[in-house]
Protein backbone atom coordinates (compact mmCIF):
# COMPACT_ATOMS: atom_id res chain seq x y z
CA UNK A 1 0.00 0.00 0.00
CA UNK A 2 3.08 2.23 0.07
CA UNK A 3 2.55 3.06 -3.59
CA UNK A 4 -1.13 3.89 -3.07
CA UNK A 5 -0.27 6.38 -0.34
CA UNK A 6 2.77 7.91 -2.04
CA UNK A 7 0.98 8.39 -5.38
CA UNK A 8 -2.43 9.31 -4.05
CA UNK A 9 -2.90 12.16 -6.51
CA UNK A 10 -2.55 9.81 -9.46
CA UNK A 11 -5.05 7.40 -7.96
CA UNK A 12 -7.56 10.11 -7.02
CA UNK A 13 -7.64 11.31 -10.64
CA UNK A 14 -8.27 7.77 -11.84
CA UNK A 15 -11.01 7.22 -9.29
CA UNK A 16 -12.79 10.41 -10.42
CA UNK A 17 -12.83 9.11 -14.00
CA UNK A 18 -14.15 5.77 -12.82
CA UNK A 19 -16.91 7.45 -10.80
CA UNK A 20 -18.25 9.03 -13.99
CA UNK A 21 -18.22 5.70 -15.83
CA UNK A 22 -19.85 3.77 -13.00
CA UNK A 23 -22.42 6.54 -12.47
CA UNK A 24 -23.64 6.01 -16.04
CA UNK A 25 -23.96 2.30 -15.43
CA UNK A 26 -25.59 2.90 -12.07
CA UNK A 27 -28.14 5.24 -13.62
CA UNK A 28 -29.05 2.60 -16.20
CA UNK A 29 -29.40 0.00 -13.45
CA UNK A 30 -31.59 2.40 -11.48
CA UNK A 31 -33.88 2.81 -14.47
CA UNK A 32 -34.03 -0.95 -15.02
CA UNK A 33 -34.80 -1.63 -11.35
CA UNK A 34 -37.64 0.89 -11.25
CA UNK A 35 -39.08 -0.14 -14.60
CA UNK A 36 -38.99 -3.74 -13.47
CA UNK A 37 -40.78 -2.88 -10.25
CA UNK A 38 -43.36 -0.90 -12.19
CA UNK A 39 -43.94 -3.75 -14.58
CA UNK A 40 -44.39 -6.11 -11.68
CA UNK A 41 -46.78 -3.68 -10.05
CA UNK A 42 -49.02 -3.34 -13.09
CA UNK A 43 -48.72 -6.91 -14.33
CA UNK A 44 -50.21 -8.11 -11.07
CA UNK A 45 -52.35 -5.06 -10.46
CA UNK A 46 -55.30 -7.36 -10.17
CA UNK A 47 -57.64 -4.84 -11.74
CA UNK A 48 -59.94 -4.58 -14.67
CA UNK A 49 -62.51 -1.98 -15.64
CA UNK A 50 -65.71 -3.11 -17.35
CA UNK A 51 -67.16 -0.06 -19.11
CA UNK A 52 -70.95 -0.22 -19.45
CA UNK A 53 -73.00 1.00 -22.37
CA UNK A 54 -75.02 4.19 -21.89
CA UNK A 55 -78.29 2.27 -22.34
CA UNK A 56 -77.45 -0.45 -19.77
CA UNK A 57 -80.32 -0.54 -17.26
CA UNK A 58 -79.97 -0.99 -13.58
CA UNK A 59 -81.25 -4.56 -13.55
CA UNK A 60 -78.75 -5.72 -16.18
CA UNK A 61 -75.95 -4.02 -14.35
CA UNK A 62 -76.93 -5.66 -11.03
CA UNK A 63 -77.19 -9.07 -12.73
CA UNK A 64 -73.76 -8.62 -14.24
CA UNK A 65 -72.41 -7.48 -10.88
CA UNK A 66 -73.74 -10.58 -9.13
CA UNK A 67 -72.57 -12.90 -11.90
CA UNK A 68 -69.04 -11.53 -11.74
CA UNK A 69 -68.87 -12.15 -8.03
CA UNK A 70 -69.45 -15.83 -8.70
CA UNK A 71 -66.54 -16.08 -11.17
CA UNK A 72 -63.49 -17.81 -9.64
CA UNK A 73 -60.46 -15.52 -9.08
CA UNK A 74 -62.64 -12.37 -9.01
CA UNK A 75 -62.43 -11.15 -5.42
CA UNK A 76 -64.37 -7.91 -5.62
CA UNK A 77 -66.68 -5.90 -7.86
CA UNK A 78 -67.53 -2.23 -7.37
CA UNK A 79 -70.01 -0.20 -9.41
CA UNK A 80 -68.88 3.34 -10.34
CA UNK A 81 -71.57 5.53 -11.83
CA UNK A 82 -70.90 8.25 -14.42
CA UNK A 83 -71.31 10.92 -11.80
CA UNK A 84 -68.93 9.26 -9.40
CA UNK A 85 -66.37 8.78 -12.17
CA UNK A 86 -66.68 12.45 -13.16
CA UNK A 87 -66.29 13.51 -9.54
CA UNK A 88 -63.17 11.39 -8.94
CA UNK A 89 -61.55 12.58 -12.14
CA UNK A 90 -62.42 16.22 -11.50
CA UNK A 91 -60.93 16.15 -8.02
CA UNK A 92 -57.67 14.74 -9.34
CA UNK A 93 -57.57 17.29 -12.16
CA UNK A 94 -58.22 20.17 -9.78
CA UNK A 95 -55.45 18.98 -7.50
CA UNK A 96 -53.10 18.65 -10.44
CA UNK A 97 -54.32 21.88 -12.02
CA UNK A 98 -55.28 19.93 -15.14
CA UNK A 99 -57.15 21.42 -18.12
CA UNK A 100 -59.63 18.53 -18.23
CA UNK A 101 -61.44 19.48 -15.03
CA UNK A 102 -64.25 21.11 -17.09
CA UNK A 103 -65.28 17.96 -19.03
CA UNK A 104 -69.05 17.11 -18.80
CA UNK A 105 -70.45 14.02 -17.03
CA UNK A 106 -71.39 12.44 -20.37
CA UNK A 107 -67.70 11.91 -21.10
CA UNK A 108 -67.42 9.39 -18.27
CA UNK A 109 -69.17 6.01 -18.72
CA UNK A 110 -70.33 3.97 -15.78
CA UNK A 111 -68.15 0.99 -15.00
CA UNK A 112 -67.70 -2.06 -12.87
CA UNK A 113 -64.27 -2.03 -11.21
CA UNK A 114 -63.14 -5.62 -10.76
CA UNK A 115 -60.44 -6.82 -8.41
CA UNK A 116 -58.91 -10.10 -9.54
CA UNK A 117 -56.78 -12.54 -7.57
CA UNK A 118 -53.00 -12.24 -7.87
CA UNK A 119 -52.63 -15.83 -9.04
CA UNK A 120 -54.92 -15.37 -12.04
CA UNK A 121 -52.92 -16.08 -15.18
CA UNK A 122 -52.95 -13.80 -18.22
CA UNK A 123 -54.64 -16.50 -20.29
CA UNK A 124 -57.45 -16.92 -17.79
CA UNK A 125 -57.96 -13.17 -17.50
CA UNK A 126 -58.03 -12.92 -21.29
CA UNK A 127 -60.71 -15.57 -21.42
CA UNK A 128 -62.84 -13.72 -18.85
CA UNK A 129 -62.41 -10.46 -20.73
CA UNK A 130 -63.38 -12.07 -24.02
CA UNK A 131 -66.59 -13.46 -22.53
CA UNK A 132 -67.49 -10.15 -20.87
CA UNK A 133 -67.08 -8.24 -24.12
CA UNK A 134 -69.80 -10.39 -25.63
CA UNK A 135 -72.33 -9.33 -23.01
CA UNK A 136 -74.93 -6.87 -24.35
CA UNK A 137 -74.53 -4.28 -21.59
CA UNK A 138 -70.74 -4.16 -21.79
CA UNK A 139 -69.12 -1.59 -24.00
CA UNK A 140 -65.45 -2.39 -23.37
CA UNK A 141 -63.14 -4.05 -20.86
CA UNK A 142 -59.80 -2.51 -19.87
CA UNK A 143 -57.18 -4.79 -18.28
CA UNK A 144 -54.33 -2.19 -18.57
CA UNK A 145 -52.32 -4.81 -20.50
CA UNK A 146 -51.23 -2.22 -23.04
CA UNK A 147 -49.55 -0.30 -20.25
CA UNK A 148 -47.70 -3.35 -19.03
CA UNK A 149 -46.74 -4.23 -22.60
CA UNK A 150 -45.29 -0.77 -23.06
CA UNK A 151 -43.50 -1.06 -19.74
CA UNK A 152 -42.10 -4.43 -20.78
CA UNK A 153 -40.71 -2.85 -23.94
CA UNK A 154 -39.23 0.00 -21.92
CA UNK A 155 -37.73 -2.50 -19.55
CA UNK A 156 -36.19 -4.47 -22.42
CA UNK A 157 -34.73 -1.27 -23.77
CA UNK A 158 -33.39 -0.42 -20.33
CA UNK A 159 -31.74 -3.83 -20.03
CA UNK A 160 -30.10 -3.44 -23.44
CA UNK A 161 -28.86 0.00 -22.45
CA UNK A 162 -27.50 -1.41 -19.22
CA UNK A 163 -25.65 -4.16 -21.10
CA UNK A 164 -24.16 -1.66 -23.54
CA UNK A 165 -23.13 0.60 -20.69
CA UNK A 166 -21.56 -2.34 -18.90
CA UNK A 167 -19.35 -2.94 -21.93
CA UNK A 168 -18.52 0.77 -22.08
CA UNK A 169 -17.67 0.79 -18.37
CA UNK A 170 -15.54 -2.32 -18.83
CA UNK A 171 -13.55 -0.55 -21.51
CA UNK A 172 -13.31 2.62 -19.44
CA UNK A 173 -12.07 0.80 -16.35
CA UNK A 174 -9.54 -1.22 -18.33
CA UNK A 175 -8.27 1.92 -20.01
CA UNK A 176 -8.14 4.14 -16.93
CA UNK A 177 -6.80 1.62 -14.45
CA UNK A 178 -4.49 0.13 -17.04
CA UNK A 179 -2.97 3.50 -17.84
CA UNK A 180 -2.63 4.36 -14.18
CA UNK A 181 -0.87 1.10 -13.43
CA UNK A 182 1.49 1.43 -16.37
CA UNK A 183 2.35 4.94 -15.24
CA UNK A 184 2.83 3.74 -11.67
CA UNK A 185 5.01 0.89 -12.91
CA UNK A 186 7.16 3.31 -14.86
CA UNK A 187 7.51 5.66 -11.90
CA UNK A 188 8.41 2.78 -9.64
CA UNK A 189 10.75 0.98 -12.01
CA UNK A 190 13.61 1.25 -9.52
CA UNK A 191 11.47 -0.48 -6.91
CA UNK A 192 10.59 -3.23 -9.36
CA UNK A 193 14.24 -3.60 -10.36
CA UNK A 194 15.34 -3.89 -6.74
CA UNK A 195 12.60 -6.38 -5.95
CA UNK A 196 13.73 -8.60 -8.78
CA UNK A 197 17.36 -8.38 -7.72
CA UNK A 198 16.58 -9.49 -4.18
CA UNK A 199 14.66 -12.51 -5.42
CA UNK A 200 11.03 -11.42 -5.55
CA UNK A 201 8.88 -13.51 -7.86
CA UNK A 202 6.80 -11.80 -10.53
CA UNK A 203 3.67 -12.53 -8.48
CA UNK A 204 5.17 -10.74 -5.48
CA UNK A 205 6.02 -7.73 -7.62
CA UNK A 206 2.58 -7.64 -9.23
CA UNK A 207 0.66 -7.98 -5.97
CA UNK A 208 0.72 -4.32 -4.85
CA UNK A 209 -0.28 -3.13 -8.31
CA UNK A 210 -3.22 -5.54 -8.46
CA UNK A 211 -4.24 -4.42 -4.98
CA UNK A 212 -4.11 -0.78 -6.05
CA UNK A 213 -6.20 -1.57 -9.12
CA UNK A 214 -8.76 -3.36 -6.96
CA UNK A 215 -8.99 -0.42 -4.58
CA UNK A 216 -9.33 2.01 -7.48
CA UNK A 217 -12.12 0.04 -9.11
CA UNK A 218 -14.02 -0.43 -5.86
CA UNK A 219 -13.57 3.24 -4.91
CA UNK A 220 -14.83 4.35 -8.31
CA UNK A 221 -17.94 2.20 -8.03
CA UNK A 222 -18.55 3.24 -4.42
CA UNK A 223 -18.18 6.90 -5.36
CA UNK A 224 -20.70 6.42 -8.16
CA UNK A 225 -23.20 4.78 -5.80
CA UNK A 226 -22.83 7.64 -3.31
CA UNK A 227 -23.19 10.24 -6.08
CA UNK A 228 -26.27 8.55 -7.52
CA UNK A 229 -27.82 8.14 -4.07
CA UNK A 230 -27.27 11.80 -3.28
CA UNK A 231 -28.86 12.92 -6.54
CA UNK A 232 -31.67 10.39 -6.23
CA UNK A 233 -32.74 11.39 -2.74
CA UNK A 234 -32.38 15.06 -3.62
CA UNK A 235 -34.67 14.74 -6.63
CA UNK A 236 -37.04 12.22 -5.15
CA UNK A 237 -38.24 14.61 -2.49
CA UNK A 238 -39.42 17.01 -5.20
CA UNK A 239 -41.10 14.61 -7.67
CA UNK A 240 -42.26 11.65 -5.58
CA UNK A 241 -45.93 12.70 -5.15
CA UNK A 242 -46.37 13.30 -8.88
CA UNK A 243 -44.66 10.10 -9.91
CA UNK A 244 -46.55 8.05 -7.34
CA UNK A 245 -49.86 9.52 -8.49
CA UNK A 246 -49.05 8.89 -12.13
CA UNK A 247 -47.78 5.34 -12.00
CA UNK A 248 -49.04 4.11 -8.67
CA UNK A 249 -45.73 3.62 -6.93
CA UNK A 250 -42.84 5.70 -5.60
CA UNK A 251 -39.40 5.40 -7.22
CA UNK A 252 -36.83 3.44 -5.27
CA UNK A 253 -33.04 3.46 -5.19
CA UNK A 254 -30.85 0.49 -6.09
CA UNK A 255 -31.39 -2.44 -3.75
CA UNK A 256 -28.47 -3.20 -1.42
CA UNK A 257 -27.43 -6.37 -3.30
CA UNK A 258 -27.29 -4.45 -6.58
CA UNK A 259 -25.25 -1.61 -5.05
CA UNK A 260 -22.84 -4.05 -3.39
CA UNK A 261 -22.65 -6.03 -6.62
CA UNK A 262 -21.69 -2.89 -8.50
CA UNK A 263 -18.89 -2.17 -6.03
CA UNK A 264 -17.69 -5.78 -6.24
CA UNK A 265 -17.82 -5.54 -10.04
CA UNK A 266 -15.67 -2.43 -9.86
CA UNK A 267 -13.15 -4.17 -7.63
CA UNK A 268 -12.90 -7.17 -9.94
CA UNK A 269 -12.54 -5.00 -13.04
CA UNK A 270 -9.87 -2.91 -11.36
CA UNK A 271 -7.91 -6.01 -10.36
CA UNK A 272 -8.21 -7.44 -13.86
CA UNK A 273 -7.11 -4.21 -15.50
CA UNK A 274 -4.08 -3.95 -13.21
CA UNK A 275 -3.13 -7.57 -13.79
CA UNK A 276 -3.29 -7.14 -17.55
CA UNK A 277 -1.22 -3.97 -17.40
CA UNK A 278 1.63 -5.35 -15.32
CA UNK A 279 1.70 -8.90 -16.64
CA UNK A 280 4.92 -8.24 -18.51
CA UNK A 281 7.41 -7.09 -15.93
CA UNK A 282 10.43 -8.14 -17.93
CA UNK A 283 13.75 -8.95 -16.35
CA UNK A 284 16.40 -6.47 -15.21
Amino acid at each position, binding site marked *: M*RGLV*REWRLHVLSVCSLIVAFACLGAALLAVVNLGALQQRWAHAGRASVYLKDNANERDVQALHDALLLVPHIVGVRYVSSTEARTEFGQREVEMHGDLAGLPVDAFPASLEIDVAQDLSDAELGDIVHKMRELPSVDDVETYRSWTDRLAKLLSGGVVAAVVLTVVVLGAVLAVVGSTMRLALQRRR*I*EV*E*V*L*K*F*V*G*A*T*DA*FVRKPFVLEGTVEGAAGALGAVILLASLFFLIRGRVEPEVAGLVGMAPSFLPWPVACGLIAFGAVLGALAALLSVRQLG*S*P
Partner: protein
Amino acid sequence: MPPMEPPERFRPMLRAGGSRFSRDAAARPILVFEGVHKSYGHGLPVLRGMDLVIERGEFVFVTGPSGAGKSTLLRLLYRAELVDDGRILFLGRDVARLRDDAVPFLRRNLGIVFQDFKLVTSWTVYENIAIVLEVIGLPQRLVRTRVAEVLERVGLAGRGEDRAGVLSGGEQQRVAIARAIVGEPALILADEPTGNLDPQLAVDILGLFGEIHETGATVLFATHDRTLLDVRPRRVVVLDGGRAMDVPEGVADEYDNRLPL
Protein backbone atom coordinates in the same frame (compact mmCIF):
# COMPACT_ATOMS: atom_id res chain seq x y z
CA MET B 1 21.49 -21.49 -25.94
CA PRO B 2 21.60 -24.47 -23.51
CA PRO B 3 18.29 -26.25 -22.84
CA MET B 4 16.29 -25.13 -19.77
CA GLU B 5 16.22 -27.24 -16.61
CA PRO B 6 12.80 -28.43 -15.41
CA PRO B 7 12.93 -27.59 -11.65
CA GLU B 8 10.83 -24.64 -10.64
CA ARG B 9 13.00 -23.58 -7.73
CA PHE B 10 16.74 -23.20 -7.35
CA ARG B 11 17.83 -25.86 -4.88
CA PRO B 12 21.51 -25.89 -3.94
CA MET B 13 23.09 -29.30 -4.28
CA LEU B 14 24.27 -29.81 -0.73
CA ARG B 15 23.03 -33.34 -0.72
CA ALA B 16 24.63 -35.96 -2.94
CA GLY B 17 22.12 -38.77 -3.21
CA GLY B 18 19.42 -39.61 -0.68
CA SER B 19 18.33 -37.15 1.94
CA ARG B 20 21.39 -37.08 4.18
CA PHE B 21 23.74 -34.13 4.18
CA SER B 22 26.93 -34.92 2.25
CA ARG B 23 30.25 -33.51 3.38
CA ASP B 24 31.66 -34.11 -0.09
CA ALA B 25 28.92 -31.96 -1.61
CA ALA B 26 29.56 -29.24 0.96
CA ALA B 27 33.30 -29.29 0.14
CA ARG B 28 32.77 -28.70 -3.57
CA PRO B 29 33.57 -25.30 -5.04
CA ILE B 30 30.78 -22.82 -4.58
CA LEU B 31 31.16 -21.45 -8.09
CA VAL B 32 32.53 -22.95 -11.27
CA PHE B 33 32.72 -21.37 -14.72
CA GLU B 34 33.33 -23.94 -17.46
CA GLY B 35 34.06 -22.81 -20.99
CA VAL B 36 31.81 -19.78 -20.72
CA HIS B 37 31.27 -17.86 -23.94
CA LYS B 38 29.42 -14.57 -24.14
CA SER B 39 29.28 -11.99 -26.88
CA TYR B 40 27.01 -9.11 -27.60
CA GLY B 41 25.37 -7.88 -30.76
CA HIS B 42 28.50 -6.46 -32.33
CA GLY B 43 29.95 -9.95 -32.55
CA LEU B 44 33.08 -9.42 -30.49
CA PRO B 45 33.09 -11.94 -27.66
CA VAL B 46 33.44 -10.57 -24.16
CA LEU B 47 34.13 -13.95 -22.59
CA ARG B 48 35.79 -16.68 -24.59
CA GLY B 49 35.82 -20.11 -23.08
CA MET B 50 36.37 -18.71 -19.61
CA ASP B 51 37.14 -21.16 -16.82
CA LEU B 52 37.18 -20.21 -13.18
CA VAL B 53 36.70 -21.98 -9.84
CA ILE B 54 35.80 -20.21 -6.60
CA GLU B 55 35.98 -22.17 -3.36
CA ARG B 56 33.71 -21.62 -0.39
CA GLY B 57 34.85 -18.88 1.92
CA GLU B 58 37.19 -17.21 -0.57
CA PHE B 59 37.52 -13.50 -1.15
CA VAL B 60 38.30 -13.00 -4.83
CA PHE B 61 38.99 -9.82 -6.71
CA VAL B 62 37.93 -9.89 -10.34
CA THR B 63 39.77 -7.20 -12.20
CA GLY B 64 40.72 -6.15 -15.71
CA PRO B 65 40.55 -3.16 -18.03
CA SER B 66 37.26 -1.59 -19.02
CA GLY B 67 35.29 -3.90 -21.27
CA ALA B 68 37.10 -6.97 -20.01
CA GLY B 69 33.87 -8.57 -18.90
CA LYS B 70 33.86 -8.10 -15.13
CA SER B 71 30.27 -6.91 -14.96
CA THR B 72 29.25 -9.40 -17.64
CA LEU B 73 30.64 -12.23 -15.54
CA LEU B 74 28.55 -11.16 -12.55
CA ARG B 75 25.44 -10.54 -14.68
CA LEU B 76 25.72 -14.05 -16.08
CA LEU B 77 25.90 -15.37 -12.56
CA TYR B 78 22.73 -13.72 -11.34
CA ARG B 79 21.03 -14.39 -14.67
CA ALA B 80 20.59 -10.88 -15.91
CA GLU B 81 22.23 -12.29 -19.04
CA LEU B 82 22.36 -15.74 -20.60
CA VAL B 83 25.57 -17.46 -21.64
CA ASP B 84 26.04 -18.30 -25.30
CA ASP B 85 27.88 -21.48 -24.38
CA GLY B 86 29.40 -23.18 -21.38
CA ARG B 87 28.25 -23.77 -17.83
CA ILE B 88 28.09 -21.75 -14.67
CA LEU B 89 27.72 -24.04 -11.68
CA PHE B 90 26.59 -22.29 -8.52
CA LEU B 91 26.13 -24.62 -5.56
CA GLY B 92 26.16 -27.45 -8.05
CA ARG B 93 23.38 -26.12 -10.25
CA ASP B 94 23.87 -24.86 -13.79
CA VAL B 95 22.60 -21.31 -13.62
CA ALA B 96 22.32 -21.02 -17.39
CA ARG B 97 19.81 -23.84 -17.56
CA LEU B 98 17.43 -22.49 -14.94
CA ARG B 99 13.91 -21.63 -16.03
CA ASP B 100 12.92 -17.98 -15.75
CA ASP B 101 10.61 -18.67 -12.81
CA ALA B 102 13.51 -20.25 -10.89
CA VAL B 103 15.72 -17.15 -11.19
CA PRO B 104 14.21 -15.40 -8.12
CA PHE B 105 15.16 -18.39 -6.01
CA LEU B 106 18.71 -18.26 -7.37
CA ARG B 107 18.98 -14.61 -6.42
CA ARG B 108 17.84 -15.33 -2.87
CA ASN B 109 21.12 -17.20 -2.47
CA LEU B 110 23.10 -14.22 -3.67
CA GLY B 111 23.81 -10.82 -2.17
CA ILE B 112 24.46 -8.22 -4.86
CA VAL B 113 26.05 -4.82 -4.39
CA PHE B 114 26.11 -2.39 -7.30
CA GLN B 115 28.19 0.60 -8.18
CA ASP B 116 25.12 2.86 -8.21
CA PHE B 117 23.77 1.35 -4.95
CA LYS B 118 20.33 0.61 -6.45
CA LEU B 119 18.41 1.74 -3.40
CA VAL B 120 14.83 2.96 -3.48
CA THR B 121 15.49 6.50 -2.34
CA SER B 122 11.89 7.15 -1.33
CA TRP B 123 11.99 4.23 1.11
CA THR B 124 13.59 4.32 4.52
CA VAL B 125 16.84 2.55 5.28
CA TYR B 126 14.85 -0.09 7.12
CA GLU B 127 12.50 -0.68 4.20
CA ASN B 128 15.36 -1.01 1.74
CA ILE B 129 16.94 -3.76 3.82
CA ALA B 130 13.80 -5.45 5.12
CA ILE B 131 12.47 -6.11 1.63
CA VAL B 132 14.96 -8.99 1.25
CA LEU B 133 13.38 -10.78 4.20
CA GLU B 134 9.81 -9.81 3.34
CA VAL B 135 10.24 -11.37 -0.08
CA ILE B 136 11.01 -14.74 1.53
CA GLY B 137 8.11 -14.34 3.95
CA LEU B 138 9.81 -13.91 7.30
CA PRO B 139 7.55 -12.61 10.10
CA GLN B 140 7.94 -8.93 10.92
CA ARG B 141 9.33 -9.62 14.38
CA LEU B 142 12.27 -11.53 12.87
CA VAL B 143 12.69 -8.96 10.13
CA ARG B 144 13.05 -6.15 12.68
CA THR B 145 15.66 -8.12 14.61
CA ARG B 146 17.74 -9.08 11.58
CA VAL B 147 17.67 -5.59 10.08
CA ALA B 148 18.81 -4.06 13.36
CA GLU B 149 21.70 -6.54 13.50
CA VAL B 150 22.98 -5.80 10.02
CA LEU B 151 22.62 -2.06 10.49
CA GLU B 152 24.91 -2.37 13.45
CA ARG B 153 27.38 -4.48 11.46
CA VAL B 154 27.66 -1.88 8.74
CA GLY B 155 27.90 1.01 11.19
CA LEU B 156 24.44 2.49 10.66
CA ALA B 157 22.78 1.52 13.93
CA GLY B 158 19.72 3.67 14.67
CA ARG B 159 19.45 5.01 11.11
CA GLY B 160 16.60 2.75 10.09
CA GLU B 161 13.99 5.48 9.90
CA ASP B 162 16.08 7.80 7.74
CA ARG B 163 15.03 8.06 4.14
CA ALA B 164 17.65 6.46 1.91
CA GLY B 165 17.71 9.45 -0.40
CA VAL B 166 19.15 11.78 2.25
CA LEU B 167 22.18 9.60 3.04
CA SER B 168 25.66 10.26 1.74
CA GLY B 169 27.18 8.05 -0.95
CA GLY B 170 29.18 6.03 1.54
CA GLU B 171 26.17 5.55 3.78
CA GLN B 172 24.02 4.49 0.86
CA GLN B 173 26.58 1.89 -0.11
CA ARG B 174 26.60 0.61 3.47
CA VAL B 175 22.84 0.25 3.26
CA ALA B 176 23.28 -1.65 -0.01
CA ILE B 177 25.81 -3.93 1.66
CA ALA B 178 23.45 -4.46 4.58
CA ARG B 179 20.76 -5.42 2.12
CA ALA B 180 23.13 -7.86 0.45
CA ILE B 181 24.06 -9.65 3.67
CA VAL B 182 20.81 -9.56 5.65
CA GLY B 183 19.58 -12.71 3.94
CA GLU B 184 22.85 -14.53 4.81
CA PRO B 185 23.46 -15.48 1.19
CA ALA B 186 25.90 -18.14 0.07
CA LEU B 187 27.79 -15.72 -2.18
CA ILE B 188 28.17 -11.97 -2.20
CA LEU B 189 28.73 -10.26 -5.53
CA ALA B 190 30.09 -6.75 -5.64
CA ASP B 191 30.08 -5.01 -9.02
CA GLU B 192 32.41 -2.01 -8.71
CA PRO B 193 30.93 -1.09 -5.31
CA THR B 194 33.47 1.68 -4.75
CA GLY B 195 33.23 3.16 -8.24
CA ASN B 196 31.19 6.17 -7.10
CA LEU B 197 33.07 6.79 -3.85
CA ASP B 198 36.16 8.77 -2.97
CA PRO B 199 39.37 6.79 -2.26
CA GLN B 200 39.10 6.84 1.53
CA LEU B 201 35.50 5.74 1.47
CA ALA B 202 36.43 3.06 -1.04
CA VAL B 203 38.95 1.66 1.42
CA ASP B 204 36.38 1.81 4.22
CA ILE B 205 33.89 -0.10 2.13
CA LEU B 206 36.51 -2.66 1.21
CA GLY B 207 37.23 -3.05 4.90
CA LEU B 208 33.56 -3.71 5.51
CA PHE B 209 33.59 -6.44 2.88
CA GLY B 210 36.64 -7.86 4.60
CA GLU B 211 34.80 -8.04 7.91
CA ILE B 212 31.89 -9.75 6.23
CA HIS B 213 34.27 -12.22 4.62
CA GLU B 214 35.78 -13.04 8.00
CA THR B 215 32.41 -14.33 9.15
CA GLY B 216 32.67 -17.02 6.48
CA ALA B 217 30.96 -15.44 3.48
CA THR B 218 32.31 -15.98 -0.01
CA VAL B 219 32.91 -12.67 -1.77
CA LEU B 220 33.42 -11.96 -5.47
CA PHE B 221 34.57 -8.36 -5.79
CA ALA B 222 34.76 -6.89 -9.29
CA THR B 223 36.83 -3.72 -9.58
CA HIS B 224 39.16 -1.90 -11.89
CA ASP B 225 40.65 0.08 -9.01
CA ARG B 226 44.24 -1.05 -8.70
CA THR B 227 44.72 0.56 -5.31
CA LEU B 228 42.16 -1.67 -3.68
CA LEU B 229 44.03 -4.77 -4.75
CA ASP B 230 47.01 -3.63 -2.71
CA VAL B 231 45.12 -2.96 0.52
CA ARG B 232 45.29 -6.54 1.64
CA PRO B 233 46.66 -9.62 -0.15
CA ARG B 234 43.80 -11.50 -1.71
CA ARG B 235 43.29 -13.87 -4.58
CA VAL B 236 43.03 -11.87 -7.80
CA VAL B 237 41.52 -13.04 -11.08
CA VAL B 238 42.33 -10.93 -14.09
CA LEU B 239 40.05 -10.99 -17.08
CA ASP B 240 42.02 -10.59 -20.26
CA GLY B 241 41.12 -11.47 -23.83
CA GLY B 242 37.89 -13.02 -22.64
CA ARG B 243 39.64 -15.45 -20.33
CA ALA B 244 40.34 -15.51 -16.61
CA MET B 245 43.94 -15.45 -15.47
CA ASP B 246 44.18 -16.54 -11.91
CA VAL B 247 46.72 -14.66 -9.83
CA PRO B 248 46.49 -16.29 -6.42
CA GLU B 249 48.43 -13.55 -4.58
CA GLY B 250 48.38 -10.02 -5.88
CA VAL B 251 48.46 -8.81 -9.47
CA ALA B 252 51.20 -10.14 -11.68
CA ASP B 253 53.62 -7.60 -13.07
CA GLU B 254 52.57 -8.28 -16.67
CA TYR B 255 49.12 -6.94 -15.85
CA ASP B 256 50.30 -4.15 -13.62
CA ASN B 257 50.52 -1.49 -16.30
CA ARG B 258 47.19 -2.46 -17.87
CA LEU B 259 45.09 -1.68 -14.84
CA PRO B 260 44.26 1.91 -13.91
CA LEU B 261 45.51 3.38 -10.68
